[in-house]
């Protein structure tokens, strides 16, 4: 299992390098430089925000679930953080703790509705998103709260060209990788997503990994909300309209994680996030029309995922760790 996974992740990083090289060449052809300090900082900052969300999204997708409420959790978290901090440096930790608790509770609710009530994750998290949206729109009229200057350092400090927020995101990614490899729950996530029935027969209780994944996903979305609050200096309710839920799913899939669960990992997701951010930076440097950006992004995501899918068909002979029901491989190849 670990070899083919490395293979896909490796491919994603190769794709990232290829896009960087192509972008740099295109920019150079127009007499511009792609990776100036400004652009690199911009690229990495952009990645850190989407990165937090996408790491959590990876966990739920590995469990064969998904989370459409992350954008709303981000918005709520930014408001919770900014109002709890109320501009006072002494209350920074209160704000952070409040966000983690609120986000974890939302994740728990998502997880419980999915596992106990048997509601599909798509509907659960879509509904949860609507619930949060209604609360935000009713309770807050626009930006709320104030973040003390000390906490704004989280969003603006950088180490050389690496923003602090990116370093924190990378650390969270490393933790997530270790969690998936070293802990029982983490390993079980692959099992649950791979094939729930086989997993159950081999003694894995599916509820726990799934529940954990939903809680962790909401918490990482909460971290993204904290970053938003620190960069905006206030909580912003309107963040939910920025489409982070679909973008994070795109990043996860672009990172080589299988949408049906069980295969992939956080390493690839980070690369997927970097690919999306690099594309944005390249488009910015080349001055691509903002609407043309959408067209290109859509086409590139489809093309990349089609490429991965082709590789997966080629590797259909490799026995996965948790074998699927007989015939699935045939069905996958059995289309045309």
């Amino acid at each position, binding site marked *: 299992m670990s070899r083919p996974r490395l293979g896909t992740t490796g491919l994603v990083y190769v794709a990232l390098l290829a896009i960087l090289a192509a972008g740099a060449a295109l920019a150079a052809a127009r007499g511009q430089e792609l990776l100036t300090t400004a652009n690199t900082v911009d690229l990495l900052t952009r990645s850190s925000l989407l990165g937090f969300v996408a790491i959590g999204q990876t966990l739920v997708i590995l469990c*064969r679930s998904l989370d459409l409420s992350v954008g709303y959790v981000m918005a709520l978290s930014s408001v919770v953080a900014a109002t709890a901090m109320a501009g006072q440096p002494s209350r920074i930790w209160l704000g952070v703790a409040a966000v983690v608790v609120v986000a974890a509770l939302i994740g728990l609710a998502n997880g419980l509705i999915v596992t106990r009530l048997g509601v599909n994750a798509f*509907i659960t998290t879509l*509904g949860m998103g*609507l619930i949060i949206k*209604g609360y935000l729109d*009713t309770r807050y009229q626009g930006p709320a709260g104030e973040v003390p200057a000390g906490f704004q350092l989280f969003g603006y400090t950088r180490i050389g060209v690496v923003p602090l927020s990116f370093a924190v995101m990378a650390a969270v990614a490393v933790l997530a990788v270790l969690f998936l490899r070293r802990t029982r729950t983490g390993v079980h996530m692959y099992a649950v997503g791979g094939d729930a029935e086989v997993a159950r027969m081999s003694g894995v209780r599916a509820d726990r990994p799934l529940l954990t994944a939903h809680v962790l996903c909401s918490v990482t979305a909460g971290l993204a909300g904290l970053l938003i609050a620190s960069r905006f200096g206030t909580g912003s309710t309107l963040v939910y309209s920025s489409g982070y839920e679909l973008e994070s799913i795109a990043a996860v899939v672009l990172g080589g994680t299988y949408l049906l669960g069980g295969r992939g990992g956080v390493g690839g997701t980070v690369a997927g996030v970097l690919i999306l951010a690099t594309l944005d930076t390249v488009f910015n440097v080349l001055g691509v029309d903002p609407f043309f950006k959408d*067209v290109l992004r859509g086409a590139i*995501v489809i093309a990349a995922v089609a490429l991965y899918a082709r590789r997966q068909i080629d590797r259909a002979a490799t026995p996965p760790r948790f074998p699927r029901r007989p015939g699935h491989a045939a069905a996958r190849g059995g289309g045309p």
Partner: protein
Amino acid sequence: MTATDTPASGAAGALRRAGAALAGGGGGTVFALLVLVFAVIFAINPGFARPPSLLAFAQQAAPLVVLAVGQYLVIVSGELDLSVGSLVGAQVVVAARLIDGQEPMTLPVLALMLAFGAAVGLVNGLVTTVLKVPSIIATLGMMLVLYGAVRLWTGGAPTGALSEAFRVAGRGDAVVLPLIGGVPWAVLIAAAVGAAAVALMRSPYGRTLVAVGDNATAAAFSGARVWRVRTLAFVGSSVLATLAAVLIGGFAGVTAQVGEGLEFSAITAVVLGGVVLGGGRGAVLAAIGGALAVEALFTLFNQLYLPSTIQPTVQGVIIIAAVAYAARERSRRSPRAPAPAGGPEKSPREEV
């Protein structure tokens, strides 16, 4: 007031059974919900029970009904179509720009829209089935491409205008009946689409579509060409989205935001109708019931003078509760233990 209310809520179980019988299983809850919502609306505002109000409701619901039928075809085959909202937007904007208020352009542009819609569905279907891109990603990509391409073409905001003839389907009345009043074209069109869909699902193609959604492998072994069946479902969804665009554009004219978020409304409607994400289960009539229930909820919120900011919250709670209730009913009926991950329902992304 009580007379309308009590039997409706008291007989919810019976209604659900009747609905289930009507919809062929799984969809009973939505009809019970629909009756309940209407009972409350009538209780608040007895005037709403008059034909003109009901027909106006049906006219507003027609585009969502059409979209839900299209989304049903894709969902029951085990896929998902996220591109319908931006396709509706694209089609309305394209129509406005090409027609530009000139009546003779109406028919040619309608034909072009139909071709464009079919092409979009074909691309969605082939990318999903032949290139093996999960449909959620394939149609998400299509959504981005359509959103960007149309705005790129029009410079960000729609231009032009729709012709009067174009607007008849969404806005005009087909006949004026005594006592009842004008019957809108949109209602007749939606009813025709519903009837055609029911007939389709009883045809060999319809049965194969469900079989493919239930178990693509088994269907393939029994001779179904899975890729073709699913691709046709995507084409159906996009063509119906085009029809919905004609209805919406006709109803309200062209605005910059037209179509936004409709994909989620359509999916919600279908799932509310007891159709299982992941495919293979659920009836098209129940999906139509789901669309009517979604629209009825909005009407109810409005009749209750519910502040519009709180409406999403109530909507979210009701959707989750209704689907949870349906899931409970289903697991109670079938002795098989629910599959653990993702609950008794299948994942939204079934094997290709």
